[in-house]
């Protein structure tokens, strides 16, 4: 929490980037190791953790090797060329077993379905020693006419130019035959045999590799800026991945920032909505509010929503500006949107207003947690300097104070989940399940705010209390995820 009137106590350099990822590096499996020993009894097993996900972070070469192995398996099992194997695997999202099964049963059907061969082959009659190429419309010697499996003959020069244009426009695996209404795809070996420019050959191989990775359900590029890492996981699920190279945390399935308990479609809808409605919601971005009691202007510079006015010492909630006493864990109401029960009978304008009100309610909370998360980083900094100070003054050792850092990391993690509960709730139909969700959300909110308050004020004597609070908050978080994260 933080309370500060008008003063600019927020001039912290934000080189917290490295430290802020410390927890996340070992997040998905090692997080709980950070907890202190007396919590170990409750340490969830891998299968108990709703966020548990197994993945590997690979370099480009590893992925090339992996894809080649997949191709090799198909080649040796079906006695086909690698270029054909690649086409088949790409056409069927690398479902190797499926391709092998279909190819063993009915190879020609598979080849037609995969656009490798045509339904009916074109019977072009080439009588004389030369013929007209259908693309450049000039007479060409028969020896310089080439076709794909469909039998549409065109001259080598046209094929070459065609491939060049396609590659320059970024098309690689989707290059089709040049004839009208023919969708037979060009195999890689044909392209390499026809393409004259070496730099375009390299470009083709790079671009097609990207396409292969994109079409493989077990692979995903790390979305971090310029990050070369490719993530590999057993199955394509909306689970958390943390890149150890660029520290980006994202969802394996959709590549967006990690968003549990909200699912991929909903978060996309929500983010689009927020981008569209950002103008309307802009007023929210104001960082200051007035103390509800003494009306002094207050700037929020910490993550905690439990505010205490530094002037009149009034405790209130940043979200609703109500008395904090009404925000105990049993009756935390601030996270719940109260719909107007009579809305169906209201005018169109009133309904539109209500819709906007509802959206803004959720958006405000979403945005507030996002901001708090950023402020938590400052808190982390403050904690570090506080620890430094304490240790220098011989008030405990550095090790004694570690629990405080753990608490700050846990706080960030809880807040993150909490932020992503709001899009979920926004799109949820009004039903008993939503009531349960909002109940659990409120519980988590309350415990997170308690934790936040305690972290910002912890002294060595509070250790037991704080650790207890950490345990409660994390349990609330896991309960919510277990109940609502679709696994």
């Amino acid at each position, binding site marked *: 929490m933080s309370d500060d009137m008008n003063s600019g106590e927020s001039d912290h350099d934000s080189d917290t980037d490295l430290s802020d990822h410390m927890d996340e590096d070992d997040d998905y499996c090692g997080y709980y190791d950070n907890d202190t020993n007396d919590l170990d009894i409750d340490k969830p097993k891998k299968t108990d953790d709703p966020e548990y996900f197994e993945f590997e972070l690979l370099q480009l070469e590893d992925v090339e090797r992996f894809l080649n192995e997949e191709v090799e398996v198909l080649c040796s099992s079906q006695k086909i060329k690698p270029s054909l194997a690649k086409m088949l695997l790409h056409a069927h999202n690398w479902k190797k077993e499926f391709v092998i099964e279909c190819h063993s049963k009915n190879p020609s059907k598979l080849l037609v379905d995969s656009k490798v061969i045509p339904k009916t082959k074109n019977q072009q009659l080439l009588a004389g020693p030369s013929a007209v190429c259908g*693309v450049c419309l000039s007479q060409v010697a028969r020896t310089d006419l080439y076709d794909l499996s469909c039998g549409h003959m*065109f001259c080598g020069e046209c094929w070459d130019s*065609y491939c*060049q244009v396609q590659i320059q*426009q970024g098309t690689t695996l989707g290059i089709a035959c040049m*004839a009208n209404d023919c969708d037979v795809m060009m195999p890689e070996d044909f392209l390499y045999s026809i393409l004259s420019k070496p730099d375009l050959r390299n470009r083709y191989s790079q671009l097609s590799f990207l396409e292969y990775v994109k079409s493989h359900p077990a692979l995903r590029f790390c979305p971090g800026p310029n990050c070369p890492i490719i993530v590999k996981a057993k199955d394509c699920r909306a689970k958390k991945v943390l890149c150890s190279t660029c520290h980006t945390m994202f969802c394996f399935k959709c590549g967006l920032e990690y968003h549990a308990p909200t699912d991929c479609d909903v978060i996309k809808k929500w983010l689009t909505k927020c981008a569209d409605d950002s103008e309307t919601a802009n007023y929210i971005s104001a960082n200051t509010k007035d103390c509800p009691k003494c009306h002094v202007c207050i700037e929020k510079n910490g993550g905690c929503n439990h505010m205490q006015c530094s002037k009149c010492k009034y405790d209130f909630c940043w979200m609703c500006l109500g008395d904090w006493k009404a925000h105990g864990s049993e009756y935390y109401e601030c996270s719940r949107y109260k719909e107007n029960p009579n809305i169906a009978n209201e005018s169109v304008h009133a309904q539109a207003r209500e819709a906007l009100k509802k959206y803004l309610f959720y958006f405000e909370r979403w945005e507030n947690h996002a901001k708090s998360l950023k402020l938590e980083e400052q808190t982390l900094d403050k904690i570090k300097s506080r620890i430094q100070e304490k240790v220098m003054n011989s008030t405990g050792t550095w090790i004694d104070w570690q629990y405080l850092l753990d608490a700050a990391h846990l706080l960030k993690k809880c807040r993150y989940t909490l932020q992503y509960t709001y899009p979920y709730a926004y799109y949820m139909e009004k039903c008993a399940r939503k009531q349960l969700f909002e109940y659990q959300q409120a519980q988590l909110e309350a415990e997170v705010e308690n934790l936040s308050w305690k972290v910002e004020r912890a002294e060595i004597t509070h250790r037991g209390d704080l650790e207890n609070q950490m345990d409660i908050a994390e349990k609330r978080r896991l309960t919510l995820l277990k109940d609502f994260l679709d696994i």
Partner: protein
Amino acid sequence: MANIAEARIRREFKEVVKSEEVAKCHIKVELVNDNYTELRGEIIGPPDTAYDGGKFILEIKIPDTYPFNPPKVKFATKIWHPNISSVTGAICLDILKDQWAAAMTLRTVLLSLQALLATAEPNDPQDAVVAKQYKENQAIFLQTARHWTNVYAGGPHREQVLEQKVEQVKNMGFEEHRARVALSSANWDPERATESLLNS
């Protein structure tokens, strides 16, 4: 690449000029400049359609990468059709986009456009207003399309009731084409049309 484009257009030109359709005056292509990058196409509205007898001029631009990429084609003649913008003349036709094949020619393009006039695709519209009218009020759509063909493409079928309505709105001080667009978009309801003109 440009030399392939030019050589190809030269050869195609001969093909179109020699073709049967040209002989019957159904389609036509002319050069606009010397380097074969801009052409002027012409198609005659197919019989038994609202476009019957109209002469529609097309602006054709040949990209450097032709024939590996499609020519850029749009209607220079104003036309009322679900797949053609009544404002810009832009065309929504698959072979001018992703279904283009290098073996297609200007002749195939012009014939496809002629076919498009005969069979609209209202579910893949370029002009939403026209497409809506086409789907919801086929009779008014046909009248409107005939009227536009008569006024802008020299088609033989006059729609006198519609002409009078245009005249009426024009007399209120609006420019003729704007008046026609407003009326066409408002299913020829003069009140709604003037309202939209006043609000724009």
